[in-house]
């Protein structure tokens, strides 16, 4: 479980996060949604330690990550997997080398064991046999799947996904969403997904946090978000014509 308590983060005069608090439970797909510029990415970067918080704390199973030094953080970071918006695969390495990289750095596995693990991860994301391809030879959806395979290679306890559907067609988006959901349940991970995509919210959202003006504006389940009367959420959720028509049909 990840708990965020009263986080504040500013960039000069620009106060991005205001006393932000939330809990992200293990074995659930937790979604952070909200309009652009509301602080979603900053929040995630603060949680994973790519940015330092001004005040407040980030707890990973009650271990205060924000107060830890670099060396202490390393132990927690080994338990974190992250899927970046642009996949962030190492472009000089093949698919197989990308997946084996964290294993090489942090485990004492033999090359054979690492290879087996890489193959298992590739199989899990339906990319068996693509071991020797370079990231430049992959499509957007395949890159995301390889990034997921790399993220799960160390069997992480926590998985962060930054807009996993951006730039993907609807059917590939659905594939990625389902994959994230399946591995969350399979590995009992605490998964945090940042998204704008309402389809993802409906498909995989177990727990949803709506961020607005840097604050935890609303949280609940996907069933609750559809019924909520909160104005800001209605503006966000029913921004598209499709969702509006759906709302009309649902009454």
């Amino acid at each position, binding site marked *: 479980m990840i708990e965020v308590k009263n986080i504040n983060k500013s960039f000069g005069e620009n106060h991005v996060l205001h006393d932000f608090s939330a809990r992200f439970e293990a074995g659930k797909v937790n979604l952070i949604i909200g309009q652009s510029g509301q602080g979603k990415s900053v929040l995630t970067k603060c949680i994973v330690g*790519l940015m330092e918080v001004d005040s407040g704390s980030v707890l990973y199973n009650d271990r205060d990550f924000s107060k830890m030094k670099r060396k202490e953080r390393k132990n927690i970071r080994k338990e974190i997997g*992250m899927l*970046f918006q642009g996949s*962030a695969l*190492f*472009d000089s390495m093949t698919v197989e080398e990308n997946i084996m990289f964290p294993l090489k750095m942090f485990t004492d596995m033999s090359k054979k064991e690492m290879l087996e693990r890489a193959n298992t991860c590739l199989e899990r994301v339906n990319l068996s046999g693509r071991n020797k391809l370079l990231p430049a030879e992959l499509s957007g959806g395949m890159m995301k799947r390889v990034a997921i395979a790399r993220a799960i290679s160390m069997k992480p306890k926590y998985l962060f996904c930054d807009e996993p559907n951006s730039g993907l067609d609807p059917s590939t988006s659905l594939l990625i969403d389902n994959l994230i959901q399946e591995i969350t349940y399979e590995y009992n991970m605490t998964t945090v997904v940042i998204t704008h995509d309402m389809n993802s919210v409906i498909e995989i959202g177990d727990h949803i946090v709506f961020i607005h003006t840097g604050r935890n504006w609303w949280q609940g389940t996907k069933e609750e978000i559809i019924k909520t009367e909160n104005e800001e959420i209605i503006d966000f959720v029913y921004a598209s014509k499709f969702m509006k028509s759906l709302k009309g049909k649902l009454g």
Partner: protein
Amino acid sequence: MSYITSIGKYVGMIKEVFSKPERFKVYYTRTITEIETIGIKSAGIVAILSVFMGAVIALQTASNMDSPLLPKYTIGYITRSSTILEFSPTIISLILAGKVGSNIASEIGTMKVTEQIDALEIMGVNSLSFLVLPKIIAAVFFFPFLIICSMGLSILGGYYSVTASGLASHEEFTYGVRAFFKMGDIIYALVKTCVFAFIIVSVSSYYGYYTKGGALDVGTSSTQAVVWSSITILLANFILTQLILM
């Protein structure tokens, strides 16, 4: 003020670069790869430049020797001295600052803007040490070999240009090359090379690592890396010459 901030950031970066590596084996493999990328792959340009520059130095020396009192072996002597003392260590390092420096800055800069460095950090890898240390080791160990080759090729270029054009004989040129030779000059040149190698890699890595934005900014970082490594090399050359030769 911004220069002081940059120097402070640079010093902080160097401290991080030299922190204990996570996996020596991985670092060793990366160092070997870097020797190939920034060392062996630069050998061609170094060889071509050295031969032609040596030839031009020798021809210019010969054409400017109007006095009959000056012995012909002076051509070989001046070619050797200018090659060993300045041309090979300094000019070749400036060329390498352009070739290797821009390569390093754009490689690390691209990794930065495509979140590959963030991915390393999330995994718990010290990205600065992982990316920069193998490059520094590779350059500091391999550039002296390149410079020694450059010295030899440059003198060879000079030899062929003056002997082929009949400006000096084989005996005169080789006598000049051997005359008043001091081993200290080679050591001076190699010390300079090691310092320049460190400057090229560290300054270029600094500009690459702190790139913000997109493709345009990677290009800007790459240019800045070349400009500032060249300026720092010239400054270091002046200081080292004062310290070692004076």
